[in-house]
């Protein structure tokens, strides 16, 4: 208690020197939390977007389906029957049929994926209701990325050519019924969404699908012959790996910030041992044990972290809260680089993140404060009083 009281007095009395250290340390605090908050916010946002636009609560994949191998697509379809059919009917699953095709926008030829989706589905965020039209032409929807690369826009007609299950080529005109904006590039680039029943008819694959998306996350999907269960964790694995690599990169920045902040504290403490020798001698002459003096200096150093937390809270909380509400705008969309990333990112500052950061900084500050303070224990009080120690 006495060390605490004296440490407070010494810190307040030291004035600008204390505040400079505290400002540097609080800046490190806030930037560490801010940076981690962005990664966490991105993580959450990307997960939410991936789940709502593509992964759902998990999926059934037709056993031959391999999204990384387009040559498997011709064999990756099977009828949705039995309990799967029942779950589709009660709205807990929605089937998607995936095949290949070619479009000819503005005289160019583009190979694309054709994806059939039920216009009435509510499981994925894809605006499939736009496909629910009675006009004569087959309606299609595309994402903004696809619209940009194909130079198509809502209302445009484009020729589509495909090859049905028997290998026969066919072609028709489709009309772009809508262009949707998504942060998930894997439901946007090089693909066109059509009404499921229409695509099944075109492909001669009535009642068939390639993947079936579940509404609810389920740890134990019922096994169905001919279909492989892919749970949500599997479907989000790629994105999690990207986030993980970003987090690792973030650790480097975190380390640099911590080093800078702790260097300031360490420097102050080392200087204090030399500059405050007579004071240390006086403490011992007055009856403090060396252990108490070491405790005082360590507490002084550690108090920097406490003051930095308070100062960081004063300007950090409003600043970070504002960003969490308003979000941070990014000039280039992450989806241009194939990453699920919104143009406006909303950082997420969890209580766990804040507590862990505060604890780490406090522990690290205490350690770097104690380290030079140990030198006091080796001082002869008579030398300290005369300021003789080098």
């Amino acid at each position, binding site marked *: 208690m*006495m060390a605490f*009281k*004296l440490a407070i*007095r*010494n810190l*307040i*009395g*030291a*004035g600008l020197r204390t505040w400079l250290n505290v400002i540097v340390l609080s800046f490190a605090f806030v930037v560490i939390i801010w940076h981690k908050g962005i990664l966490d916010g991105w993580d959450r946002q990307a997960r939410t977007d991936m789940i709502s636009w593509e992964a759902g609560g998990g999926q059934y994949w037709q056993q031959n389906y391999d999204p990384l191998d387009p040559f498997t697509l011709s064999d990756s379809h099977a009828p949705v029957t039995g309990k799967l059919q029942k779950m589709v009917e009660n709205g807990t699953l929605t089937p998607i049929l995936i095949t290949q095709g070619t479009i000819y926008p503005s005289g160019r030829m583009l190979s694309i994926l054709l994806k059939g989706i039920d216009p009435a589905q509510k499981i994925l965020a894809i605006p499939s209701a736009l496909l629910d039209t009675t006009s004569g032409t087959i309606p299609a929807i595309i994402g903004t990325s696809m619209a940009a690369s194909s130079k198509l826009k809502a209302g445009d007609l484009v020729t589509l050519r495909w090859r049905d299950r028997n290998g026969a080529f066919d072609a028709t005109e489709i009309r772009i019924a809508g262009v949707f904006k998504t942060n998930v590039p894997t439901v946007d680039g090089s693909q066109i969404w059509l009404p499921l029943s229409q695509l099944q008819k075109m492909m001669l694959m009535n009642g068939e699908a390639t993947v079936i998306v579940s509404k609810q996350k389920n740890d134990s999907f019922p096994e169905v012959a001919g279909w492989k269960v892919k749970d949500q964790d599997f479907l989000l694995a790629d994105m999690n790996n990207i986030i993980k690599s970003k987090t690792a990169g973030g650790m480097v920045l975190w380390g640099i910030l911590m080093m800078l902040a702790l260097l300031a504290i360490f420097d102050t403490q080392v200087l204090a041992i030399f500059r405050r020798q*007579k*004071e240390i*001698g*006086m403490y*011992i*002459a*007055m*009856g*403090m*044990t*060396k252990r108490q003096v070491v405790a005082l200096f360590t507490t002084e150093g550690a108090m920097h972290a406490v003051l930095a937390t308070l100062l960081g809270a004063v300007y950090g909380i409003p600043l970070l809260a504002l960003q969490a509400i308003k979000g941070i705008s990014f000039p280039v969309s992450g989806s241009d680089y194939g990453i699920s990333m919104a143009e406006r990112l909303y950082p997420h500052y969890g209580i766990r993140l804040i507590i862990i950061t505060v604890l780490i900084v406090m522990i690290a500050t205490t350690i770097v404060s104690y380290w030079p303070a140990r030198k006091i224990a080796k001082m*002869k*009080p*008579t030398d300290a*009083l005369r300021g003789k120690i080098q």
Partner: protein
Amino acid sequence: MNSDHLITIQHLKKHFAMGSGKFTALNGIDLTFDKGEFTGIIGPSGSGKTTLLNIIGSLDVPSEGKAIVMGKSVGDLGARESAFLRKTQLGFIFQSYNLLQVHTVYENVEFPLLLLGIESAKRKQMVNDALEWVGLTDKTNSRPAQLSGGECQRVAIARAMVKKPEIVLADEPTANLDAANSHHILQTMEKLNRDFSTTFIFATHDEKVIGYIRRKIYLEDGKVAKDEMIQKS
């Protein structure tokens, strides 16, 4: 050993390592000090005054012989015990004041009482009393940098006296002061010595101090050259 003496020094020697050899700062000192003395240890630089004061103050230990302070042999005390002796029974006054620059006058004087764990209200009373003894009640919130040398030394006296120790050790207390301030603080210490029977031991070669003390112990080359009592009217 005569237990009536406050301090007993027996055959005290103190050596310091110097290169490959050693330097003998104190070479067989035998002295006793009694309660209420106002004594000066006088000698030129290097005569061993400060070393003797440091040993009496349990800041250093004898190389040979004994220094018994209030019944405790300084050389035999552990770190905690010697810290306790300093904390409870000894007050120090230094040539360069050694005040805490970032603390106020009040806080500097309060410091020894914090170490003793004295409760707040009593502490406040004791600090105010001490500041009154040295005539600094109007400077309680000043910091040392705002005070003159004489005022700083008066703060140091108040800090040394606030816990009413048995012994105050003053190492060249007037060395940094002009004549007027020197006389002022010496009169203050003389009064405190009279009022509380506190034993004052000075290490000095200042003639002004020598004029006030009642016992003069002359050190030369680490030995007592002369020990005389002064009868004051």
